[in-house]
C-alpha cells in the first residue's frame, strides 16, 4: 500500500523499532534558542557532562526575548540577559554553533533555518518551540519538543516517539485576489478548531497550496500547531527546489542531483490513505481575521462579531461571551468597525521578506493613521538587510512605522515590545491568547496585507478598502 509524505519521512528515520516500545527516530536538525534550552544543557552537565552528540546538526540563535532596538547594548532586563548569556555560555562549552545578536545570521529560529538552506525536504527537524511546524513547508517532518526532549536530542540526536496520525487538508482552486496563506490557515483553524488536529500531522495539498510561494507555505505550516496538530507538511516540488538551490547549506553539484532525486520520491503515493481529510474550496476564501482569544475564533473580515446565540453549544457560548468581554467588543458589530492602537508586522508566521514586500506595497504613498503605532520587525537580520536593499525600510519609515531589529518581539512580548493593558492590535503573529502580547492586551490576528491596510485606516481593513494612491 502507498505511503503518505509523513510516513515516508518517518520510516526513513527509524533507528530502532521494537514491539511494545516507541520508535527511536533520528533527528537531522536540532534548532535551539535561549528560553527552552538552559535546563537541558544543565542536565547534560550534571549527567557526568554528557557531550552534545552532533554539534554539527545543532544550531542556536537568540530570538525569543531579545530587544529590537539598541541590540549592541547590554540587554536591560536582567532575566532576559541571564537567559541569553546562558545560551552563549552553553553553546561555547558544548561546541554548538550560535548566531548571537550582532551576527548577520541571527534571527527567529524558524526564519534562520530555512534561509540558510538547512531545512530541506525529507528531514526531521525539532526545536524547543511549538512553531517548529514551520519547516514542514519543505516536506520535512518538523515539530516542537519540551526541555527534557531537548536534552534527549542534544545527548542522542534521537527521540523515542509513537507515530502520528495523518490528515489531508486539501485546498483546491485559485485563491481570490487579496487572499493570502495567512487567510487560508486562519480559515482552516476556524473550520477544524483549535483541537481538530490533535494527534495528527497535517498535509496541505491541492492546487491552491501548490501555487503558494515558500514563504506562504511556511506561514501555512507555521500555524498547524494552532489547529492542535504537532506538525504540518507540504510535498516538495519545483518551488521548493528553486528556493533551496544556491543557499548556504544546500547541496551542490552531484550532491544536489542526488538530493533532488530523493526528494522526488517523497510526495504521498496516489494509493496512500490518510486517517482524516478536510477539503476547502479556495474560491470561497476571503481575508480572514480573528475576533476572539483563540486562533479558532476567526471570521471573514466582512463578517460581524458573533453573538452568544451563534454558539454551537453551551461550552462555546461561554467561550464566546468570555472572549467578547476580554476583547472589549459588542456582539454583532461589524469587524471592520474595530479600531486598533497598534499594528505589529513580524514573527515566525509573517516576518519574511515576502511579507514585508506585501506590507510595503500597500504603505507606498500612504501614511499610518495618527492613532496607530506600527511596528515592523524583520524575522532575521538577513531579511532586514534584504528589505533595506529593496528600500522597503524607507517606505515603512516614510509612512510613519517603526523599523526594528530582528526577533520574536511583540508576538509573545518577552522583550520590551508589549501592548499596554486594554490596548488593541492587528498582528501578523500566530496567537491571540489573553495577554499574549502584554498583560491585558487584545490581539486580532491578520495577514500582512490586512495589517498594512488597517494601519492606514486605523480600523480592521483589507487593501481593497483603501482609496487609490494619488499619482503626481
Amino acid at each position: 500500500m502507498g505511503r503518505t509524505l509523513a510516513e515516508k519521512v518517518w520510516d526513513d528515520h527509524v533507528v530502532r523499532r521494537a514491539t511494545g516500545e516507541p520508535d527511536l527516530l533520528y533527528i537531522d536538525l536540532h534548532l535551539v534558542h535561549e528560553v527552552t534550552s538552559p535546563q537541558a544543557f544543565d542536565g547534560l552537565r550534571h549527567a557526568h557532562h554528557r557531550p552534545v552528540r552532533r554539534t554539527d546538526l545543532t544550531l542556536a540563535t537568540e530570538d525569543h526575548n531579545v530587544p529590537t532596538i539598541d541590540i549592541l547594548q547590554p540587554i536591560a532586563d536582567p532575566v532576559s540577559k541571564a537567559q541569553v548569556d546562558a545560551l552563549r555560555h552553553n553553546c561555547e562549552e558544548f561546541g554548538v554553533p550560535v548566531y548571537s545578536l550582532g551576527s548577520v545570521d541571527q534571527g527567529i529560529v524558524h526564519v534562520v533555518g530555512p534561509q540558510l538552506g538547512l531545512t530541506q525536504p525529507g528531514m526531521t527537524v525539532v526545536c524547543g518551540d511549538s512553531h517548529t511546524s514551520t519547516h514542514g513547508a519543505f516536506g520535512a517532518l518538523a515539530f516542537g519538543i519540551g526541555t527534557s526532549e531537548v536534552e534527549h536530542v542534544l545527548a542522542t540526536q534521537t527521540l523515542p516517539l509513537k507515530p502520528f496520525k495523518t490528515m489531508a487538508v486539501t485546498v483546491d482552486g485559485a485563491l481570490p485576489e487579496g487572499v493570502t496563506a495567512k487567510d487560508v490557515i486562519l480559515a482552516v483553524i476556524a473550520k477544524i478548531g483549535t483541537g481538530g488536529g490533535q494527534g495528527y500531522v497535517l498535509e496541505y495539498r491541492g492546487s491552491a497550496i501548490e501555487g503558494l510561494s515558500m514563504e506562504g507555505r511556511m506561514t501555512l505550516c507555521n500555524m498547524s500547531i494552532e489547529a492542535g496538530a504537532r506538525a504540518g507538511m507540504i510535498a516538495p516540488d519545483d518551488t521548493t527546489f528553486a528556493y533551496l538551490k544556491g543557499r548556504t547549506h544546500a547541496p551542490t553539484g552531484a550532491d544536489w542531483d542526488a538530493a533532488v532525486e530523493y526528494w522526488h520520491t517523497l510526495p504521498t503515493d496516489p494509493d496512500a490513505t490518510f486517517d482524516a481529510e478536510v477539503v476547502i474550496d479556495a474560491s470561497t476564501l476571503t481575508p480572514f481575521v480573528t475576533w476572539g482569544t483563540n486562533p479558532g475564533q476567526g471570521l471573514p473580515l466582512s463578517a460581524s462579531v458573533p453573538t452568544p446565540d451563534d454558539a454551537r453549544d453551551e461550552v462555546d457560548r461561554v467561550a464566546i461571551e468570555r472572549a467578547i468581554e476580554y476583547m472589549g467588543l459588542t456582539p454583532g458589530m461589524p469587524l471592520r468597525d474595530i479600531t486598533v492602537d497598534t499594528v505589529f508586522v513580524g514573527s515566525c508566521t509573517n516576518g519574511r521578506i515576502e511579507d514585508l514586500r506585501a506590507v510595503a506595497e500597500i504603505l507606498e504613498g500612504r501614511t499610518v493613521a495618527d492613532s496607530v503605532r506600527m511596528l515592523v520587525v524583520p524575522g532575521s537580520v538577513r531579511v532586514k538587510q534584504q528589505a533595506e536593499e529593496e528600500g522597503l525600510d524607507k517606505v515603512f519609515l516614510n509612512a510613519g512605522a517603526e523599523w526594528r531589529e530582528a526577533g520574536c518581539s511583540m508576538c509573545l512580548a518577552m522583550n520590551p515590545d508589549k501592548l499596554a493593558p486594554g490596548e488593541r492590535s492587528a498582528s501578523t503573529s500566530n496567537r491571540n491568547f489573553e495577554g499574549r502580547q502584554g498583560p491585558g492586551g487584545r490581539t486580532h490576528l491578520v495577514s500582512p496585507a490586512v495589517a498594512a491596510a488597517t494601519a492606514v485606516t486605523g480600523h480592521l481593513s483589507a487593501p481593497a478598502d483603501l482609496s487609490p494612491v494619488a499619482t503626481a
Partner: protein
Amino acid sequence: MEKFIVHTGTAVPLRRSNVDTDQIIPAEYLKRITRHGFEDGLFSAWRKDPAFVLNQPHYEGATVLVAGPDFGTGSSREHAVWALQDYGFAVVLSSRFADIFRGNSGKGGLLSAQVDQEVIEALWAAIEADPSLDVTVDLERREVRAGDLVAEFDVDDYVRWRLMEGLDDIGITLQHADDIAVFEASRPSWKPTTTPVI
C-alpha cells in the same frame, strides 16, 4: 544517573500530610535557568520557622525524607524533585504520593517509595528516638530497614528497573548507541550540517 540498588542514610521525620509542590518549592524559584541549585528554595516558607524539622541540627545531612500521606500534590513542577535532590535527599518515603510528583521523581532519579502509614509512624518514632539511626532502602529487595524494623515498599516495576540500571530516558536511548551509529553511517552525505560556512 547513578545506579540505585541500596541506599543507607539518616532520615528526617516530616510529620505533615498533603505536602504540595508549592510548599516543596514556591513559584518565585521557577524563574531560574538551571536545573540545579534549588536547595535554598526547598520548603523555603517552612524553613523560616526555626522549629521546622529541617532546621534542627541533629537531622543535618539526612538523605531520606519520611513524610506523611499525599506527598507532592498540586502543581506539576519538576522543580520540586530537583529541589529535594539538590538539598541532598535520595529517597522519599510516604504512604501515598501524587501521581505527577511520582512520575517526575522517577525521571530525575529520586526514589519515591510507598509504604504503609503504620511503617511511616514506626519510622517517625524510631528516628525521633535516635536521629543518627541509619535507614536502609533496598530497591532490589523492595525493602526498608531501620533498627529492628523491616518493611516492604511499593515501586513501579519499570521505574525500579530504570533506577537499578541507573538509566534515565537518555540513558536508555544511549544503550542503543550502536544502532544510532549504524544509522548515522547510512545517512546520505548530502544531508546538511550546521557547521558555519566561512
